[in-house]
């Protein structure tokens, strides 16, 4: 029996060099990020999911860590795919690491 050859995946020139805008975006901009502005807004880029949300706390899954934003009247001003804007009187931001992550 002849050994079944593994079919090689073919990449186009554009795919190989990530010229396609969406792909490039996916490669470069999909890592979760947290921006805190002095105006009281916290921009969370590419959050995984909302784990918990009430008026005093919002917990966002960021992949390796879970970010807990605590304060008064915590409001999600906008929420769409890839961006969550949090406003309110923020007292602290906690990073909770999962088991096994350093």
């Amino acid at each position, binding site marked *: 029996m002849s050994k079944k050859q593994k079919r090689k995946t073919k990449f186009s020139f554009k795919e190989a060099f990530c010229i396609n805008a969406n792909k490039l975006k996916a490669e470069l901009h999909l890592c979760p990020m947290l921006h805190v502005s002095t105006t009281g807004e916290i921009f969370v880029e590419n959050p995984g999911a*909302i784990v918990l*949300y009430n*008026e005093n706390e919002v917990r966002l899954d960021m992949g390796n860590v879970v970010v807990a934003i605590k304060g008064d009247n915590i*409001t*999600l*001003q*906008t*929420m769409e795919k890839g961006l969550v804007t949090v406003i309110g009187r923020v007292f602290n931001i906690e990073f909770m690491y999962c088991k096994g992550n350093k």
Partner: protein
Amino acid sequence: MLHKLFVYLSGEVSFQLEGGLGERFLNSCADEMLMLKNINATLTGYTLSVPYRHFAKASKLAKKYKCKMTIINKTGLCYVLMPYKHRYGIFAGIVAFALLLVLSQFVVWDIRFFECTPMQESILRHSLYEKGISEGSLVSKKLLAKVSDELVIENSQFGWLTLNYIKGRIVIEKTNATPKPNVFSKTTTNLIAAYDGIIRKIDVSGGFLQVCEGQSVAKGDLLVSGLRQDVMGNIQKTHAEGKIYAEIEQNYEYTQSLSYSKALPINKSKSYYEIRAFNMRLPLFTKIQTPMESEQRLFRYPLSVFGFRLPATVYEYEVRQTQQTQINLTQQQATQIARRKVYDVIYEGLPEVQILSAEEKVDVFENKIVYNVKINAKAEISKQVAVP
């Protein structure tokens, strides 16, 4: 500002979410690319708002995650227009109104007369109606130029006339015609007497006078000659012109019946209206019913609502029923009618007449009167005749 306008145009729904898996609902909405705004946590759930275009998907997801959705507020143009969703007449009306506004640029809304007397205004109005230019008619520069030329030709009293179309209004400007200079005629003419009489005043500007003041003349006598033979025997020809006033005596007679019948309008009249605008006719009747004995009159006037002129003209056809009526006159009434008729004839036949005395005589018969008047008057009696 622009963002607010965009939100108003796209529409927005605010709702309350209670129970169920609230966080999962939020995550699913984000995964489905829905845009959630103003998410506030409450004791029992969340309040949030979504654009109108995402609301259907959001409500499906809420059902999926067993959340109770209560709508708080709906804003936006789509919700304003929602009650008129299937009322196509309103939209058709808006479109028709827009078309009307566009068309109204070429429509006459008003006609103004600049420095015209009321008589001239009525003459021009009537002529314009006859030529199809009135409130509501579509006009062009070519048509206005043509009509203004026609008006000048038809009415000799105007030296120059123009129809200016300014912002839906026709302004008619004109100048009065200057009187034509009296060109001396080269034809050879004589002046002869049109009536018997005694000459009282002579005012001759051309020709060779054959009579003098105080002279009696008979009808047909030569007053001013256009021909004369000079000492050399040559015949001189000229145009006799002038006025010769004489004292004349004339008899007039008129017979007036004491009873006669005439078709007179009675109180029963009916008006039929027709609106004309944009070169179209909109009759507000099916058919004009004219009784056997009736007269019809046409009135035209611009359409106005509470004093505001609209670009349309109302044609009112008034049908007035008439009836043969027997009219019985008294002797005095018949005499007055006869006198008026006789004096109309006198003033029409004798130019520049000045009645010095009049002797009246009325003969009364069974059904008529005969009115006789003998007048002594001073009048212009010359009559121009061509020399053969």
